[in-house]
């Protein structure tokens, strides 16, 4: 058996489906002001932070859960969730990696996220978030030398309150939609990145999220600020144990790019998708929004969505600064009973702004996939352009692929072009590959990878390899 086959067999089942036995501290079940105070208290937050949370909670109380999305799901009982769960050993934070709970380290090793030696070899700075808290951040010293701040957001609240206070909630305010507001009220941890003026971050920054405890919602919050003329590339990966019940993941990600800055945000999302009959899996309801605040700034989203029972997210760009650029590259693959409703929003406010959307959707099995996007060129956004391409591939006649773009053009000097196609893998292509000795599954893998190439190219090298494999694996069993 060749290596590839072995690899596939290895990965055939959701290999991240294990859970780790670690003693947890949890907040009392349910959602109320006391729980929010509990979270704020345990994180030793200043009062302004608690006020921020309570304000969001006030707003949350009047909001209703949205129901316009395509994938429907049973009602979530928000009182039946734990909003805070942390490994007990984290109560007094370890000073260095050596003090980490060995079990935690082992978990991350299993996930293939080397927190120690290998990290140094790979040259990626990693921040690992386990359930609700950030457990380890590597490469801190090297980054600090350049003035880069890369730390858990809970630490940033303590150590850099002026930055957090200024930018937190500036892109996703506490008065936003249902899930974003919920996150603002109860978020537990996440990453904070600040790149100072003119600094080009020397390495990829990466966060690995893991939901371990059952019945826990994961609400992390990421805030990335790229100051004038800086550059950062940020990666995010996610896994969760296999559990029969659905788990909620409602994160908020805010990006702010000032003059001439560039942020590249890549996600490989591989939350537990549920079993073959659609039992269990993560509800991935994430709000991601980037603000190109300054002139000539750029924000680029790249996502590979293969996991989660339901994915429901629209990473967006608000192109406020003149000449700013927004990009969105996405591959979304659904198999078995997975459902995805994803896409992007490009809101053009500044002059000469450009945006590009490339979305590739693949649905197989009994899954359902929707691209939903908004391109809005306001009357002031002179000379702006948008190009959108969304292609869908269907495998089998039990799945669905839908495209719902909203296109608004209020400016006569701007151009919008939108294209979408839906098709299946052609018999000729399959025949051609098989004739040359590939088995049907390999042939499909090859063709699908070609279909996704435009997006895969956008990923940083290390991720691209992983993503390419993931694409193949997610479609296992969908042919023949």
């Amino acid at each position: 058996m060749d290596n590839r086959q072995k690899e596939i067999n290895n990965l055939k089942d959701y290999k991240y489906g294990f859970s780790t036995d670690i003693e947890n501290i949890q907040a009392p079940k349910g959602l109320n002001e006391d729980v929010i105070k509990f979270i704020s208290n345990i994180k030793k937050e200043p009062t302004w932070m608690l006020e921020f949370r309570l304000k969001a909670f006030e707003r949350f109380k009047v909001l209703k859960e949205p129901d316009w999305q395509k994938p429907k799901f049973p009602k979530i009982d928000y009182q039946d969730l734990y909003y805070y769960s942390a490994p007990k050993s984290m109560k007094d934070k370890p000073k260095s990696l050596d003090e980490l709970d060995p079990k935690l380290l082992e978990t991350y090793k299993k996930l293939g996220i080397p927190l120690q030696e290998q990290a140094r070899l790979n040259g990626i700075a990693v921040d690992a978030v386990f359930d609700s808290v950030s457990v380890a951040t590597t490469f801190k010293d090297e980054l600090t030398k350049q003035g880069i701040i890369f730390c858990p957001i809970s630490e940033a609240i303590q150590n850099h309150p002026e930055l957090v206070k200024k930018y937190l909630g500036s892109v996703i305010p506490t008065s936003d939609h249902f899930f974003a507001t919920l996150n603002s009220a109860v978020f537990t941890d996440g990453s904070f990145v600040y790149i100072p003026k003119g600094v080009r971050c020397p390495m990829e920054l990466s966060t690995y999220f893991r939901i371990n405890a059952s019945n826990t919602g994961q609400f992390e919050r990421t805030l990335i600020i790229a100051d004038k003329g800086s550059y950062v590339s940020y990666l995010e990966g996610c896994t969760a144990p296999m559990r029969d019940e659905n788990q909620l993941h409602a994160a908020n990600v805010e990006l702010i790019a000032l003059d001439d800055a560039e942020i590249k945000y890549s996600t490989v999302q591989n939350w537990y998708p549920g079993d073959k009959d659609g039992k269990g899996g993560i509800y991935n309801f994430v709000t991601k929004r980037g603000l190109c605040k300054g002139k000539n700034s750029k924000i680029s989203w790249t996502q590979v969505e293969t996991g989660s029972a339901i994915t429901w997210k629209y990473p967006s760009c608000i192109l406020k600064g003149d000449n700013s650029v927004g990009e969105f590259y996405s591959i979304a693959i659904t198999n078995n009973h997975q459902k995805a409703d994803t896409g992007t929003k490009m809101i053009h406010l500044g002059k000469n702004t450009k945006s590009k959307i490339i979305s590739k959707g693949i649905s197989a099995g009994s899954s359902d996939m929707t691209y939903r996007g908004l391109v809005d060129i306001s009357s002031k956004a002179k000379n702006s352009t948008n190009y959108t391409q969304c292609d869908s591939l269907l495998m089998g006649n039990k799945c669905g692929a839908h495209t719902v773009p909203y296109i608004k053009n209020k400016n006569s000097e701007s151009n919008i072009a939108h294209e979408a196609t839906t098709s299946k893998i052609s018999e000729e292509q399959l025949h051609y590959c098989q004739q040359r000795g590939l088995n049907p599954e390999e042939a499909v893998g090859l063709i699908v990878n070609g279909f996704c190439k435009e997006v895969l190219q956008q990923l940083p090298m290390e991720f691209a390899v992983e993503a390419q494999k993931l694409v193949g694996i997610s479609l296992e069993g969908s042919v023949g």
Partner: protein
Amino acid sequence: MKEQLQKDFNNSIKNLSLSQKDIEIKKFCLDNFLDKGFPSRKEEDWRFSDLNQIIKNNIGELSFYNDQASTNKVDTSVFVDGLEHNKIVFINGRIEKIDFDYEKKDQIEIIDQSETINEFKNSNSLSDLNNAFTKKCFKILVKKGYQLVKPLIIYHTTNSKIWSKNINLRLNFELDKDSSLRLIDLFNDTSEKNFLNIFYNFELKENAVLKNYKVDKLENKNIKYSFNNIDQDKNSISETFILSSGSNFSKNEINCNLNGIYASAFVNGVFSLNNDKHHEIRSIINHLTENTKSFQLIKSVLDESSKAVYQGKIFVNSDAQKTDGYQLSKAILLNKESEFNAKPELEIYADDVKCSHGSASGSLNEDSIFYLMSRGLSYQQSRELLINGFLLDVVEKITDSEIKNLIKNMIGIKE
């Protein structure tokens, strides 16, 4: 509005000789409408055109009671010259004339269907309003194998003698096996600010061919809503062309169900707007069985602070393998204030299909203008030539040459 509706409804019931059951059905529809009201932007299908608001801002309070006891004088000057045709004349919502002079009388049947209530899929509260207030409803049946010799023109006329602020019309058509009908809807409105609510239902049997051309060209202050439901059997063809230009507000909805194999639907539309006009076309093509085809082409030219909306949806059922669906919308924005919104939607549950859509909007191509000007045309001439060519593309899609020429003349497009 509620009291007015109730009062006008009672008035209109009084004058009709309806059975108790029919009255109850109409009451039921009225209650439905009272409950829902006019569609507003909270409804997904109306998010770009808030009818409730538009009526409020433009007309204010509506009145619904339309006394149809007295006849209106038919103004023959509006009739189309140079094209022999059959006529149906609506004046202020009342049918004044039905005339199939050029056809064999026994091949066309006109059935009074005033009692039946149309239930449309993918419809809204306006169908309830329509059902509650329509009085005369005819079904035009084209019998098996008969193909109309001349086109049928339906004249929609409103004038200053109009009774109410709201007119509801309903017509049903059935095209039996192997039959064909060419239908032109022509709007001649001289009244001030009314709300027209028009429902057509077409039933196409095997091999039937329907060509429907809607021409709203004359400047008027009306708010217009028109809903076409088309059910298509095996091998039937429907062609819809919409020229959307004259009214203050207009929304055309086409709901087409391709029920039989090899059925095909074509929807072509032109928006040519200026002033503060706000027009919309919304099409839903339901591919319900295999080997069906649809094609849609919508082009808009928008000047001043006009606004055009196109919402097109291609739905492919899981049984509808080998579907071919295509949709393209293009818009030229001539003015800073003009606006184009599109929502081209695909909802697909079958894998062996070929579906695509495209949408583009922007300004006139400066390079093309430069090219033409360098060859001696003035700026204005180059602009007109480019717009002419842009729209000609859609008009050329009209398969009936006689009517194509008529429409070309009407909108002043040159070849």
